């Protein structure tokens, strides 16, 4: 690890971290402000929900949760938080080394007396620090919004903890998968389409998995590995799926190091 690269990388992402953190906070508070209405009119809500086709309910995970409870409602918002975090982490992953290459600053960095491994480790740790700040903001605003809007309704704090802990696993998945994909393709010209594609793609797969029922799409999408509705319903992780998720992360990271050390840095052409 090189402190200079870490500091430089961290500073580059600081503005993005602040914007994402604010967005996630705003999202949480905005949706949670509707909670008391939903909870009071729970019977009415459930009636309305039943009129929707079951496939649609499944797609939004409405059948697995009771949105009149604190965590049922929270897990519904949490899905959108996950989507935001997926795109953010994907952004950092895809851009980690590819931005230097497309903006042609890689020559500058890699002609310095540092090894590729040092460069990648410093960059990864800097990105992880940035993600952890957003993660911390999610924790704080989750507790804060629940405290503000729950009224006198109780919730299981252990389950909430499970949901919040899942954030870091989730971020690491998108960071490392983004990174390895960016190293597998020849050149990433723009990061955003990739990270949006990966984030939304995984989300849509998870929604489809709900519609199609038995099809094993849950094996490939982290939105199913760490399905908030299921965590709230069962009060526990689906251990095999979480292990699968972590395995993908570890393999992606290992492959990224392997590829990056051997990579030919493209020149101006």
């Amino acid at each position: 690890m090189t402190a200079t690269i870490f500091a430089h990388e961290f500073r580059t992402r600081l503005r993005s971290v602040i914007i994402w953190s604010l967005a996630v906070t705003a999202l949480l508070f905005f949706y949670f402000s509707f909670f008391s209405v939903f909870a009071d009119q729970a019977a009415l809500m459930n009636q309305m929900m039943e009129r929707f086709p079951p496939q649609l309910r499944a797609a939004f995970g409405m059948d697995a949760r009771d949105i009149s409870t604190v965590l049922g409602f929270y897990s519904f918002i949490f899905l959108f938080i996950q989507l935001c975090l997926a795109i953010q982490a994907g952004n950092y992953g895809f851009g980690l080394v590819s931005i230097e290459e497309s903006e042609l600053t890689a020559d500058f960095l890699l002609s310095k007396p540092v090894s590729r491994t040092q460069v990648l480790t410093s960059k990864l740790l800097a990105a992880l620090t940035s993600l952890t700040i957003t993660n911390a903001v999610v924790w704080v605003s989750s507790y804060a919004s629940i405290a503000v809007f729950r009224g006198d309704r109780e919730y299981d704090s252990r389950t909430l903890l499970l949901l919040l802990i899942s954030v870091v696993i989730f971020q690491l998945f998108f960071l490392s998968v983004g990174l390895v994909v960016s190293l597998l393709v020849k050149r990433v010209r723009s990061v955003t389409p990739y990270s949006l594609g990966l984030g939304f793609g995984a989300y849509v797969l998870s929604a489809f998995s709900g519609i199609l029922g038995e099809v094993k799409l849950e094996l490939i999408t982290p939105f199913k590995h760490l399905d908030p509705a299921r965590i709230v319903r069962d009060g526990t992780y689906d251990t095999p799926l979480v292990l699968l998720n972590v395995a993908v992360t570890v393999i992606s990271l290992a492959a990224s190091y392997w590829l990056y050390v051997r990579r030919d840095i493209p020149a101006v052409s």
Partner: protein
Amino acid sequence: MSVIEVANLTKFYGKSRGIVDVTFNEEEGEIFGFIGPNGAGKSTTIRLLLSLIHPTSGSARVFGKDVVTHGPEIRRNIGYLPSEVYYYEGMKVIDLLKYSASFYDRDCTQRIRELSETMELEMNRRISDLSYGNKKKVGIVQGLLHSPKLLFLDEPTAGLDPLMQRRFFDLIREENSRGVTVFFSSHILGEVQRLCTRVGIIREGKIVEISDIRTLQQNNYKKVRVTAPGLSAASFDLPGATNAQTENGTVHFFFKGDINTVLQRLNGLRVSDVTIEEPTLEEIFMHYYE
């Protein structure tokens, strides 16, 4: 002692050629000119020596160490000025230079100040606001600020005005007189001729000639120009004479061999003007590319 030792170095990008079987040495304290047209493989060679890319086969050693396995160690004493300069657009010049300096375990503040004064570089401007020439100046300061022992200059003068070019050359000569080895890649022969002691000529990925710049000029060819009435190109149909051309009653040609044969031929003529001179590198160079 050889600072750079390159042996049978080959690089293919997939199927397309980078360089093929390149072999040369550069001694300590030398200014080695590396000449070739665009796409000949000059940048590929430099990028291989910096381990920005990896060789397909062959080996390269810098300071006696293999570039593939000892990259970081080697780069501690290398300065690199790329042909196209790109830096972090949002940064200020001074911040970029400080970032660059932070990779070396010595204090570069003094040197940054000296260099930027010499090159008239404004330190507080943003990289994105700089013209190409000014970015090039950032590149020069950035490549020299840690007082490297070996300098890679990849077409360094592009974008610099003539005054700055001269300052830059003075700077390089000064560094060289302190014992710094310079690897100077260029397709502008005049500047190579002004600066370098030895040259390698690369063409389509292969080295076609490596020699002392003097030898290249002296031993090989003379440029002969004769003005005399009734002269034609055929008048100098001698073994060793090439490229004979007639222009307004003046014949000029290149000659390689015993110069006395030319003098004997001239003896029988009533010449109004004769010059015999060393050809410029440009002219020798064109010869290799015919």
